[in-house]
């Protein structure tokens, strides 16, 4: 059982194209969007807690099926997700602003940036998925048991306790439904990377003119750090790269304060318009 700090953020549910979307708000200062990785953004997520100290005002919508957002039936392929994200950005006022996006969220954000160049002023991407090299494959996070998957996602397996462990005080049907929601988040994440997290972005990547900062956990066991160079070479407008020590694939779950500070510094730099 895990205690969750709910004091650092607020949440609301909005309707986007007939689908209910959970949106979290945290901190005050420089406005930035945040799009989650494989475990979604449950209340009390580390990046939300770290927003205040870094003077960031984070708006964090959750994609269909993640963290309580309504699962979508329109998820035949990645383009269904892209159009949904486009609508979510419009509904949350994030269109045209900077976005921090992790893993599968970064994959969808990049796809959107390829078809809608004005969607983002800047992308700060935490270990994005979407490229593939047969000789150096991205690890299949879902061909494992739950305990192994947990150890693969972060350097410190306890970092994701608020996702993988049951919350304190929850019993009976509430606990069952919590488990169902967690399964739904995993379902949505898996559906984005199945069977190979490559939806053809490399054919479209030349269209992404958005300035991109790449951030990678030095101990990423899902997308090897070798992918940092692949992305840096493939994306047309990479302005900075960072490696974060003692961090796995979900960089911001292992090192939330460092990632938040890095984002704040990045958004405060001169090349941000």
């Amino acid at each position, binding site marked *: 059982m895990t205690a969750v700090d709910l004091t650092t953020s607020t949440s609301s549910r909005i309707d986007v194209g007939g689908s209910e979307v959970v949106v979290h708000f945290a901190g005050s200062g420089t406005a930035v969007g945040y799009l989650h990785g494989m475990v979604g953004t449950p209340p009390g997520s580390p990046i939300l807690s770290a927003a205040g100290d870094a003077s960031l005002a984070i708006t964090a919508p959750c994609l269909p099926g993640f963290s309580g957002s309504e699962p979508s039936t329109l998820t035949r392929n990645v383009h269904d997700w892209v159009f949904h994200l486009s609508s979510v950005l419009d509904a949350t006022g994030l269109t045209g602003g900077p976005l921090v996006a992790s893993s599968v969220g970064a994959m969808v954000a990049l796809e959107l940036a390829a078809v809608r160049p004005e969607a983002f002023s800047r992308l700060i991407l935490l270990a994005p998925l979407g490229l593939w090299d047969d000789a150096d494959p991205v690890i299949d996070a879902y061909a494992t048991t739950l305990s192994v998957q947990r150890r693969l996602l972060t350097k410190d397996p306890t970092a994701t306790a608020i996702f993988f462990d049951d919350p304190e005080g929850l019993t009976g049907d509430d606990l069952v439904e919590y488990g169902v929601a967690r399964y739904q988040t995993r379902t949505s994440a*898996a559906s984005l990377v199945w069977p190979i997290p490559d939806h053809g972005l490399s054919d479209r990547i030349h269209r992404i003119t958005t300035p991109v900062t790449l951030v990678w956990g030095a101990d990423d066991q899902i997308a090897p750090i070798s992918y940092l160079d692949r992305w840096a070479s493939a994306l047309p407008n990479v302005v900075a790269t960072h490696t974060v020590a003692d961090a796995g694939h979900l960089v911001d779950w292992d090192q939330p304060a460092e990632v938040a500070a890095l984002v704040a510094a990045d958004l405060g730099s001169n090349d941000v318009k």
Partner: protein
Amino acid sequence: MKTAFFHLMPYPELPDDFPQTHQSVWVDIDPKLYDPTVGHRAYNDYIDQLEYAASVGFDAVGINEHHSNGYGLMPSPNIIAAALSRSCPDATIIVLGDSVALYNPPLRVAEELAMLDNITGGRMVAGFPVGSPMDTIFAYGQNPSTVRERYHEGVELITKAWTSDEVFSFNGKYNKLRYVNVWPRPVQQPHPPIWIPGGGSVDTWDWCAENDLVYCYLSYFGYKAGLQTMNGFWNRVKDLGKEPNPFQGGFAQFIACADTEAEAWELYREPAEYFFNTCLHVYAGYADPPGYKTPNTVRSGVEGMVERAAREATARAEASAASRDAANDKSAKPKGPSSAGTSQLTFEQMVEKGYIILGDPTQVTEQIHELCTNMNVGHLMALAHFGNMSRDLVKYNTKLIGQKVLPELRNLFEDEWEDKWWPKPMPTEERQLPDRSESTMTAAKGASA
């Protein structure tokens, strides 16, 4: 009741240390372990065994579909069914079944089963499984979040293709076909009976109950463990106000029969241990890809049969590894004389837990009777071959079951219930049998020469 001789077709020569040296028998089984000469013998032995079963009293022969699997060498059950369709001229052929979501378009299934229904003169049962996670999600790369939707759409397409008397368009979410027109048309009208093999999904219970489809629980773990699952299905039937016709249920059961119980204990130990400890050595990480289960199944807490097998196999492997590590660690304290290797399932446990029904013909008859009446199951899939059983032993087991057990059970349920889900073939006198005779023209020329 009706009984099918059901074959899994395992690869018979996996190494003795397979569970200790390999992660899984399914999905990533080492290709280098496969010897095609062994495969050649195995396929021909297995087809012989199915044909033999059809000749010694079984009502049907049954086969299924697996991929990248060391215990199931049937990626295409329809190929085996095609061989049997000619060599088993009277038996019902149960394809249980074709994993509809893996065919693109699933119309291929409609066509092949219609071909088989034509060749056999209407002796086909069409089984449509969602398919295990190992087969569908890992070996065939289907997205776990959409595989069930794709499956249901495929079954809808197949049944419509069989029954429509007009060419039609099908504008599905996953299948878009401008001209659907299955030739040949099935012999059985409106279509061959549809059986659904399930592994424990509560939504499959609902679907079968609502649509009057046969629910078959193809369990590895026998009748004692299967009772809860079958009860779940019958409860749904009852909730819908429908009759609990036992012929709407099917169940798979390993059976080990000999002239005496003592002989059975002696004969079947090795093949049983080969199956349960080697063939079911499945890595748990392949058993529960997120999205494969429906929310209702997650909510119910019901553990699927494959999921259970993989969980137990992985736990055994981890226990064995820990035991070996401890034995190799000279500083470790001894854990007792039997700590190493004790994680394997014993034959005694398999029988005690009901995974295997064992005994002389009378004992086997009693246990099958108990199984079928307790579970209310009118279709039994008898697994009389398992593991690496020798050809002779399979025949011995098959003949005892076919000739001494099944005659005692044949009338079960038959007086009280109609089997609405059994094939309705063409009249025997209208069915064409294999013709091995010489041409009359050749004979005439021979006479005049």
